[in-house]
């Protein structure tokens, strides 16, 4: 596959604008780009690359005090990020399944599945889409060996 074309597809996949028809066609025949789709789905379903660093309650309270808010809201500063970092085997397995299915040239389900998932920054919606794809791709997934997820749940990143 043309390296330049693959890079172009990667840029389209990470752009809020839709994938071009040429891009979609390319993904269906390019294993590397199918893996990129899988990777992006996996990334979107998990914590962001900077989520491992969380503010201490003291930090949050200091900022709030700086704008004149006296608050005890910060006592669980790490909680939301810790929740945010949970990742499931299912999601990743489905993500990989999708990419593998694409790589094998199997039906992708709805035509705009990529865009719906990848451009969506709201993770809840993204997960809904992933689950929808799980249903759509069930047949395709039957023949795919599920990967074993080795990534730890980074909940313990937050001290």
């Amino acid at each position, binding site marked *: 596959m043309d390296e330049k074309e693959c890079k172009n597809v990667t840029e389209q996949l990470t752009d809020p604008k839709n994938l071009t028809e040429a891009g979609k066609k390319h993904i269906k025949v390019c294993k590397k780009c199918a893996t990129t789709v899988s990777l992006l789905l996996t990334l979107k379903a998990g914590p962001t690359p900077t989520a491992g660093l969380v503010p201490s309650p003291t930090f949050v309270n200091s900022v709030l005090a700086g704008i004149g808010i006296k608050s005890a809201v910060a006592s669980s500063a790490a909680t939301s990020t810790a929740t945010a970092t949970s990742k499931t085997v299912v999601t990743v397995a489905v993500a990989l399944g999708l990419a593998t299915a694409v790589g094998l040239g199997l039906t992708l389900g709805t035509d705009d599945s990529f865009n719906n998932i990848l451009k969506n920054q709201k993770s809840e919606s993204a997960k809904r889409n992933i689950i929808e794809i799980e249903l759509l791709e069930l047949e395709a997934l039957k023949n795919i060996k599920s990967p074993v997820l*080795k990534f730890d749940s*980074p909940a313990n990143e937050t001290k």
Partner: protein
Amino acid sequence: MLKRNKPDCADLIAKAKLGDSDAFADIIKQYYGLVMHYLLGMGVKHSDAEDVAQEAFITLFRKIDQVTNPSTFTAWLLRISRNLFIDKLRKEKKIDVSGSQFELELLSSNLSPESEVVSNSEVSDIFAGLKSRERVILELRVFQNMSFAEIGEVQGMTEGNVRLVFHRLISKLRDRLANEFGKV
């Protein structure tokens, strides 16, 4: 459980404008890691980065009414952080900014170990071993959907260099994913 407790940025900004203290706290929690990695990636020491980040959030919140377009919020926050850091260096006379060509890259002479090695507290994950600057570029592109030009602007890099780093990162992570699963 698939729950990912990440409130919408536009929603948080709207609530913060109304003085909702929980919204302010949520913005801090949501953007702290990004701001910290951004500063660490510029070579700021961890303790200094916390001071700058704290000041950046306070500055941002005092001007929250001026945020009219939530999509530019991230870039604005990072710009504030960068400017505060440069001010700090100026005050401490650690850099000469008298010349016309001030580039953030020049700050690398003061690189802290944190900019090269990411926090020990981070357990093995798909991002393990990535440098702070790489994490920021990845986040801004994949999670914030920023253009390469915008990322270049906040990172003090050329658009071409951002593209180069980004594609190298994607390639690295793709290999990592493939290795984790033993095939693909």
